[in-house]
Every structure is written in structure tokens, then in C-alpha cells.
């Protein structure tokens, strides 16, 4: 009886949420089904390799409201069309504050919008792609929760052959991060031969109360298409954030995935590139800066399922104070993935006296006809000799350290400059990152 009344209350809350966005019945059913999945899927026990090093209390929903009431509208931040983006969406607390898309992109049939609008205006597109192919609600407990409770969301659909040269931007924020749960969802579909770049930033103010983010990024790169996606995670310091980022690549397609992580108390992400067709190519670059008591954990997968596929992953971290970073990086070359080329590199710079890192690069090779499969990981601190050299040239210790960190990050930052000629984005990012380290 007790249980029934609880699930009845949840059911009503989900119905309310769905009604608020005028959702069709099939979408409400999707949410309710996902909620049941959420209740059925067991939480991690902490014994799993992937979870062994992460404090499971980050999964606690205590003090976090899953069903916030309607949000009062906040004025959209002033943004003119000269920020270097061909389109932009601004969302706060799951509400879309503004959105724009350059007219030439609109003419090409590109859809760039929040998910609620897409569910209403392009139901077929939505039903075809939303959590059907790249990430399914069953992935793990918090993805099921996400599928039941998502709000806002960013949808980018690029029709076959449509080419964009100027990046798009999505800014997803919270007016406060304490006490609430958010479920950001990004769905990118690049149809055959198309190309697109999306820069997405997640940010919220620091807050004393715990917050929760359970996000999903789905990227479908069809045959011959190119997708560049840069995701910046800068949640407030008491947010526990979980993200499942999964890209499925078609034949001769290209994925460039850039991830920057600097926020959250606990940040635990799964990043997977499925190289499912011949000639697919994925490049993944991650830059992580953590300090204080931050814990960041990344599980990456480069899954070579077809011949002539290539992947290259570079993860770099700078860890201050007592920060802790875990990287479980798996490269899998399956039978039949002949002449594949896979590489993983992980470089860690430990600045903090109590900083810790656990790089775990794993290779599983079932095909012998690999062109190359390699990985490398390093852990080091700032080289005192270099610091001494620079100090002898008149730099302060802090400036010298800064210069070393700067040099360390530059290689990764260069990869994140989304489009040639658009280095303004890279520089802004760089300034922010470097400010964080200083």
C-alpha cells in the first residue's frame, strides 16, 4: 500500500511534468516506462571496476528535488549575433530563454531547438532518434531516471548534405545548483554527408547545497558526415554530475569530440565512440582541471567494430589540492575490424600535494590484422628544474608554474579549437581554464 501510494505520487508528478510541456501520450508513456526501469535497475554496488574508486554517496538523491515546480522566467542574457556562432540556445533550469539560428542554416533544413519543441513540431524526428540508437534508457540507473524526468534538451538535426562552417552554441545553466536535479539532454543527428559543430556549456553558480545533474549526449554521425562536439562541464562545486556521452559512427564518418571538465564535486562520465562501419574515424580530446576535493571519473570506450576504423583519444588532466581523477579507458578491436588504428594517451600533471590519479588504459584486441593499437599514460609533477630555470630568468614561482601548466594544456586546447579561423572560442576557453588553475 505504502509503495503504491509512493509510485502513485511519482506517477502524478511525471504526468504533471509531461502536461506542462504539452507532451503527446507516447512521450508520457516513455517517461513512465523509464521511471519503472529506474526503479528496477540496481544501483552500482561499488565493486564494479568502474565504480570502485568513486564515492557512491554521490548517487544519493537526498536533499535533491527531482520534480521542481514551474520555473519563473528569468530574462535572457543579452547576446548579440556577433558572438561568432551561427546559432545559439540558452536554457536555464530546463527552460529555453532564447534561441536563434542563422537564416542560411534554416534554409538548409537544419533544426536546432529545444527537445520539447521538437517533440511537438517534428514528432517523427523525435521518435526516430530520441534515446533509441545511441543511448537507451536501460544503459544504467541514472540514464533511466534521466529518460523519465528530462527537461529542456538540445536537438540538432542536420539533413543529408547540409554543410555548416560556423559553429553553433548551447548554453545550459542553472540559476542555482543547490537542492535540485537537472537532466540535460543533447541529441545531434548528422545525416549522410553533412557537417556540423556544436559547442555546449553546462554551468551553474557555486552553492552550498548538493545538486545533481544526470545528462545524456547522443551523437549519430551518418555515412560520410562530420560532427564536432565540444562539451564544457562547469557545474557548481556541490553538484554531483553524471553524463553518458555516446556517438555512433557510420561509414567514412568523422567525429571530433572535445570534453572539458572543471566543475562538480563528483563528475562521472561515460564516453563511448562506436565505430560501427568501415572508415569511421573518431578523435576524442579531454581536458580536465580539478582542485579542492573534486573527484572526476571517466570511462571511455573506443569500440572498433568494422574494418579500417581509426580512433585517437587524448585525455589531459591538471590536478590541484586533493583532487582525484580516474580514467578507465577501453579500446576494443573486435573480430573483423581489420586494419584498424587505435590510440589512447593520458597525461596527468599533479600540482596538489594530495592530488591523486588512477589511469587504467585497457586494450582488448580480437583482430590480428590491426594497423596499430597503442596506448600510453604518464603521471608527473611540475618539473622543479624547469621552475628553477624560469625563476632564474626572473619569473615568480607562480608564473613559472603557470607557464608550465599552460604549455601542458596547449596541445589539448589546440585540438579543441572547433573551426579554423574561429580560434576566439578556443582562446576564451583557454583563458577560463587557465584562470581556474592559477
Amino acid at each position, binding site marked *: 500500500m505504502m509503495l503504491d501510494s509512493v509510485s502513485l505520487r511519482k506517477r502524478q508528478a511525471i504526468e504533471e511534468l509531461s502536461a506542462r510541456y504539452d507532451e503527446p501520450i507516447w512521450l508520457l508513456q516513455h517517461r513512465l516506462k523509464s521511471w519503472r526501469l529506474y526503479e528496477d535497475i540496481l544501483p552500482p554496488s561499488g565493486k564494479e*571496476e568502474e565504480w570502485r574508486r568513486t564515492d557512491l554517496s554521490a548517487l544519493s538523491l537526498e536533499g535533491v528535488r527531482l520534480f521542481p515546480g514551474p520555473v519563473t522566467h528569468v530574462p535572457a542574457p543579452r547576446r548579440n549575433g556577433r558572438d561568432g556562432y551561427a546559432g545559439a540556445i540558452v536554457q536555464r533550469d530546463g527552460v529555453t530563454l532564447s534561441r536563434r539560428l542563422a537564416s542560411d542554416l534554416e534554409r538548409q533544413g537544419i533544426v536546432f531547438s529545444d527537445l520539447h519543441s521538437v517533440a511537438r513540431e517534428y514528432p517523427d524526428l523525435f521518435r526516430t532518434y530520441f534515446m533509441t540508437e545511441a543511448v537507451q534508457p536501460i544503459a544504467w540507473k541514472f540514464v533511466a531516471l534521466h529518460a523519465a524526468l528530462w527537461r529542456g534538451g538540445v536537438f540538432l538535426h542536420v539533413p543529408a548534405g547540409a554543410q555548416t562552417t560556423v559553429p553553433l552554441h548551447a548554453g545550459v545553466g542553472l540559476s542555482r545548483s543547490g537542492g535540485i536535479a537537472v537532466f540535460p539532454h543533447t541529441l545531434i543527428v548528422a545525416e549522410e554527408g553533412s557537417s556540423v559543430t556544436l559547442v555546449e556549456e553546462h554551468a551553474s553558480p557555486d552553492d552550498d547545497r548538493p545538486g545533481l545533474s544526470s545528462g545524456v549526449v547522443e551523437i549519430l554521425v551518418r555515412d560520410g558526415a562530420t560532427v564536432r562536439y565540444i562539451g564544457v562541464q562547469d557545474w557548481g562545486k556541490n553538484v554531483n554530475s553524471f553524463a553518458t556521452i555516446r556517438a555512433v559512427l557510420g561509414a567514412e564518418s568523422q567525429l571530433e569530440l572535445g570534453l572539458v571538465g572543471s566543475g562538480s564535486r563528483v563528475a562521472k562520465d561515460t564516453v563511448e565512440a562506436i565505430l560501427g562501419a568501415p572508415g569511421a574515424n573518431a578523435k576524442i580530446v579531454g581536458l580536465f582541471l580539478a582542485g579542492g576535493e573534486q573527484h572526476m571519473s571517466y570511462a571511455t570506450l573506443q569500440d572498433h567494430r568494422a574494418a579500417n576504423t581509426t580512433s585517437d583519444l587524448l585525455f589531459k588532466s591538471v590536478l590541484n589540492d586533493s583532487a582525484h581523477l580516474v580514467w578507465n579507458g577501453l579500446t576494443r578491436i573486435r573480430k573483423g575490424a581489420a586494419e584498424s588504428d587505435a590510440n589512447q594517451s593520458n597525461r596527468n600533471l599533479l600540482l596538489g600535494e594530495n592530488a591523486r590519479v*588512477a*589511469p587504467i588504459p585497457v586494450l582488448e584486441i580480437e583482430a*590480428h590484422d*590491426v594497423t596499430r593499437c597503442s*596506448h*600510453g*599514460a604518464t603521471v*608527473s609533477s611540475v618539473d622543479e628544474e624547469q621552475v628553477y630555470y624560469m625563476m632564474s630568468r626572473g619569473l615568480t614561482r607562480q608564473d613559472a608554474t603557470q607557464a608550465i601548466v599552460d604549455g601542458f594544456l596547449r596541445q589539448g586546447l589546440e585540438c579543441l579549437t572547433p573551426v579554423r579561423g574561429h580560434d576566439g572560442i578556443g582562446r576564451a576557453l583557454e583563458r577560463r581554464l587557465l584562470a581556474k588553475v592559477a
Partner: protein
Amino acid sequence: MTDRKVTEMMPDAYKWGFHDEARYLFRTERGLSRKVVEEIAGIKEEPQWMRDMRLRALEVFESKAMPSWGPDLSAINLNDMYYYARASERPERDWSEVPDYIRQTFERLGIPEAERKFLAGVGAQYDSETVYHNMREELAKQGVIFADTDTAVREHPDLVQRYFGTVVPPADNKFAALNSAVWSGGSFIYVPEGVQVEIPLQAYFRINAENIGQFERTLIIAEPGSFVHYIEGCTAPIYTTNSLHAAVVEVIVKKGARVRYSTVQNWSTNVYNLVTKRSVAYEDAVVEWVDGNLGSKVTMKYPAIYLMEPGAHGEVLSLSFAGRGQHQDAGAKAVHAAPYTTSVITSKSVSKDGGRASYRGLVRAYRGAKGVRSSVRCDALLLDGDSRSDTYPTMEIDERDVTVSHEASVSKVSEEQLFYLQSRGIDEQEATKMIVNGFVEPIVKELPMEYAVELNRLIELQLEGAIG
């Protein structure tokens, strides 16, 4: 020798023909129980502390689950095994019962007749007693103790009690617990302060039927400033009908001492080889593990070095060869528990005919272990499309002031290399051999010459089987 014959030497060509008739006179009952463990301690007339340790270990063994993170061990039937049979009462096998592939490998390697019979479990004694006695006298003058572990328990009880189980406690893992409960045989080596043992100590020299046991237990203590090189096993195949080999090796290397431990494992391909090898290195001490894995059905072995005091240095050279039906899950662990300690791990693996070679390793640096340097290098060579290679390295770095690196690569024998060699008039088989030999050379060259020669022959033999 024609190719056809070589192919016959491959394990799968042979049908095991042994019947395990009840000819044992003193043998514990099938399966493991308190009674069996007490019987073993009783037969050996062991002191109370050893008996107690065995019984405690049995409890640990029973309480622990089978490891599920590595190779498939589900075919091991722990209840259907004999845990102890006294050596002198082991059955005399007939030479004709020894599988062809093993006999032919002996021939190819040029193993002396008497030794062949011992390795095949046919002769009870290998006649090395004279050599052994001479050497023992020489060593005894320097105060070196080199005995089988059972003898050491009787003759040097204080030394054994002081160190036994301190590096690998019974509770360490399920198979270490099993070994602690039922161990028998193995080597005990004690090298006094400052003594340099010039010649490698080999199990060969004190060979007796206890030596190649199922649950051997080896303990090496190197006092400050001493040096010893111990060689375990041999390149020649060791034939046994026991399907489980669970050994424990403990090595204690004190200040400024150096110990090198070389193993070439070539168990017959019915054996599950699950071994815990661990060393502790104190100030400025050096430990080197040279570990070759060629035989067995499944091997799980990760020689470990605990670097306990500043200046300690550890090295592991690991070579594995996984052929048909084999899974070599080998690797290394370096645990840096003190500042200014260093480690180097080099692993080379070759997979062929559907074999699977995995590197599994750990590098850990505890907080405060400043100035640690560690580098790991793993290379894998895949010889055909049915084979598999995995790399599972873990690094846990809790200290900022370290330099740790890990590198791995997986490759195949490339068409270009083959083409180049073939254009020089070398046939494909010969060319493949040359490439593989070049690949494993950095490890092979660290072995004593006679081992290196045998190892090379053995690899050639395996490759011929693959191609012919």
C-alpha cells in the same frame, strides 16, 4: 624432422592416455578438508605453528570466492583433486605413456635422458645428487642455506617461522590460501649478509620428486648486501597429470641486496597455473623477476615488488607465448611505498592459433612516495586472426612528485617486414621466426645462456607448428 611430425607435437594432436590407478600408498583422500590438512601436517611431522597456519589458511580458502576478474577457471574442480601424495609413493609411469609432443620436444631441446624421464614424471630421481652435494658444500662454507622448504622447516625452524607467510599472507587470495593450507616442497634459500652467490641456484641441482610439486612454496631471504640468482622451472616441458599448480613464492631483499628470480614455465597444456609471487625490497635493494610463460592451459601470475624503503629498485621482464587453447594472463605489480623508489616493467607477449595473451599489471605510488619513477612497456604480437591480446594495466598514483609512464602497443607481423625478408631469399616461416625472435630478444637475453638457447628453440618449435 618433417613438418608433419612437428604438427603432431602440438598439444591438441595428443589424446591424454593416462589412467590414474590407485597405486599411491600414502595419499590423502580426494578433496580438501580439515582432516586432509591435518594429515599433511602429520605426515610431515610439522611444528604446531605450521599446522595452525595451514588450518587458518584452509578457513580463508573456504571463505573466499573464486576470482572472477580474469581467465575462466570454471573447469577447475577443487573437490575432485588429491592435495597430497608422498613423493616416494608416486606411481612409476611408463615412458611410453608420455605424450609424443613432450618426448619430441625433449629431443629437440637436447635434454639428457635421465632428466627427460624426471621431467616427464617417469623416473623418480634425477641423478644430480653428486653435483648438488659438491655445490652444497661450497655454499655451506659461506653460510648459504639452499634446501627444499620441508627440510628447512625441520632444520631451520626459527628462520622459516620468522619469514614464512610474511610477504604473501594466507589471506592474500584464494589460491595463496590454498597453497598455505596444503603446500609441499619448493625451495628455501637464505643468503647471509654480504655473501654473493656466484652461480645461479637452480632447482635442477637439487632435483627430487618433491621439487616439481603441485603446491610448492618458495622462500628466499637475502640479507643486507648479498646477491643470489635463483632459477625456477625449466624450458623443457613438465608433464603432470595434476591439473592445478598453485605455488607461492616469497622473496625478502634487505638493504643493498639484490635478488634475481628467473622462471620459465612450460607446464603441459592441461595445467591451471595460478601462482602468487611477491617480493619486498628494502633500502637500495634490487629485485628482478624474469618470468617466461610458455606452457599451461591457463596461467595467472603477476610477480609483485613492494618497494618499502628509499632507493629500492624493481624490475620485471615478462614474456608469454599463448598457443592453441592457452590463456596466459601474466603481468607485474610495482607498489611504491617509499620515496625515491624506482621500477621498470617490460612485457612481451605473442599469441597464435587462437591463444590469448593478457597483460595485467599494477603500478601504485602511495602518498609520500616522492621521487618515484616507474615505467611500464607492454608489447604484444598477434600471429593470426584467431588469437587475442589484452592489456589491463592499472595505475594508482596518490603522490604528486612522481614520474610514472605506461606504454603499450599491439601489432602483427607486418606484410612489409615479411616482404622485406622474403625478398632477401628467406622463406615465410623462417622470416616469421626471425621477427618473433627479434621481438622477444630483450627478455631472452636476460636469461642464462643455456635457457636462452632452449627458449629460442622452443619458440621456433611453436612457430613451426603454427605454420606447418
